[in-house]
């Protein structure tokens, strides 16, 4: 079976994630879109591992998952702290720093 459908799906998911980061307002949703991008990458890794017939890509997928989990810990801590201060998780409200 051709790898193209998997790679297309991966690119599609990545694009949805990237567009989501750019257009959504809520920091949590933006962050979820980043996670979607990472998962799209995992799909690409696994597909390419299958194409090349080696395990490197599959191992990479595990590393990406661990990194994504660590990123969640740090990210949610930061987003929670700014939410508690401002009572809002909108990335548009945080605008003291500009130009």
């Amino acid at each position: 079976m051709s790898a193209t459908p998997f790679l297309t799906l991966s690119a599609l998911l990545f694009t949805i994630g990237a567009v989501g980061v750019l257009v959504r307002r809520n920091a949590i949703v933006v962050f979820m879109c980043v996670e979607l991008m990472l998962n799209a990458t995992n799909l690409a890794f696994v597909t390419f591992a299958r194409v090349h017939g080696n395990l490197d890509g599959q191992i990479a997928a595990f590393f990406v998952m661990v990194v994504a989990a660590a990123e969640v810990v740090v990210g949610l801590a930061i987003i929670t702290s700014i939410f508690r201060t401002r009572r809002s998780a909108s990335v548009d409200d945080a605008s003291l720093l500009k130009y």
Partner: protein
Amino acid sequence: MTLPMQPEFTSPVIEYSRLYPLLIVFGVAAVGVLVEAFLPRDRRYLVQVVLAVLGLGGALAGTILVAADLDVAAGDLTARGLVAAEGAVSIDGPTVFIWGVLLALSILSVLLFAERRLEGGITAFAGQAAALPGTEAERQASTRGIEHTEIFPLAMFAVGGMMLFPAANDLLTMFVALEVLSLPLYLLCGLARRRRLISQEAAVKYFLLGAFSSAFFLYGIALVYGYAGTFTLAGIDRAVTDRVGGQNLLLAGMGLMAVGLLFKVSAAPFHAWTPDVYQGAPTAVTAFMASCTKIAAFGALLRVFFVGFGGAQWDWRPMMWIVAIITMVVGSVVALTQTDIKRMLAYSSIAHAGFLLVGFAGVFEGSSGYTGITSLQSILFYLTAYGFATVGAFAIVTMVRDAGGEATHLSRWAGLGKRSPLLAGVFAFFLLAFAGIPMTSGFIGKWSVFSAAWSGGAWPLVVVAVVMSVVAAFFYVRVIVLMFFSDPVGEGPTVAVPSALTGIAVAVTVAATVVLGVVPGPVLDLAQEAGSFVR
């Protein structure tokens, strides 16, 4: 019953004798976490500071020892070193040079982190990050003198990631190193004691944009893996030289990886986070970030593009030319309009990324018998010069204060030269070094980078770079004029007397900037001895 034939297991070879500086830093970071868990609060500060400084100092000494006995790499005339840890890390001339500079600068940064006298006996970091700004809980934490000593292990983890990032010899290690260096920095940015709203805002912006850019970097890695079938840079180099598979995959992968790396070196158009984060973060963290992250990220950028994608030079050079020009123009021109000293220094750091990219896009790798400086070596020297001046400049910013903490608005700096000529003089000296005036480190750095780029045939870039240096010099001089030739407005800020920690940091950075400017020979020789990357 017999078991099916098992392939023989060979245990991996880890060259501990070459990797130990890295392991010391990570080890000390882990010990720092244990100290947080088991030591009473009032003793943590001293233990953490001593631990961090000793750890970094030990790693620096180790780096020097490792550098002293690097062997000439097999089959290569210019590179010294080896690929260690089963191909994951390369310990070569550029790596140990970058490690040395990173460790020296992070010791100075840790001294700035540990500064307590400026805030009246407490560090410049939030007493209790979980307490809301302006609440009773925050006031209580403040009056009880609570402080977060977790900043030291966090900084150590960041330093470890920064050391691994330019040394990584395969893309997966590089990605993990990128995250290890970034995640602690996101947290450190949000931990300012004063102006916590903008500090938290800086952390959120840095985090979201950083995660976004590292997702691009990762997708780039996936595409390059799809193209080459391997993560190792040597394997990618072979695939690129042999032109296997579809070139579109390679081009897309290279482009996406460049986005991630250029974000970290804060090159335009991926620079939007830099001014906000540099302004909002605690100034000690800004000093650390501005100098060390840039060094680590440039090391990784050079390694990926020179070693991995060297064979596709003609595909990525035009892109890097454009990025270099945009970065220089944006950094220099927008800095003219800034009214906040930290923001101005942030744009100055963007402009410096542009000047460094000139050397990078010039790609001059020398030839046999050539004794001049190559792109890589000139960039190593420039990074050293820039790093010391940056830490020094931000250290000065922490000392100019008024009732609300640091007085970062430029109007508050008017007439500072009359009130305290020494401090204003030192700051002016750093600004002149940034501008690249002869007899400072910045001049030698700029000169070597531009001459390497010229040798590489990138003369149009060099012309733009020289013009932009003049534009950039204008806003540095503007601050100097403001400090020395205008009268203070109203009360004006006070210049706080720091403890010996900040004093040492400033003294060392001034000395380094002078020495690198007046007798650059030894460090230039060291940079040249770094040779080139092992493959």
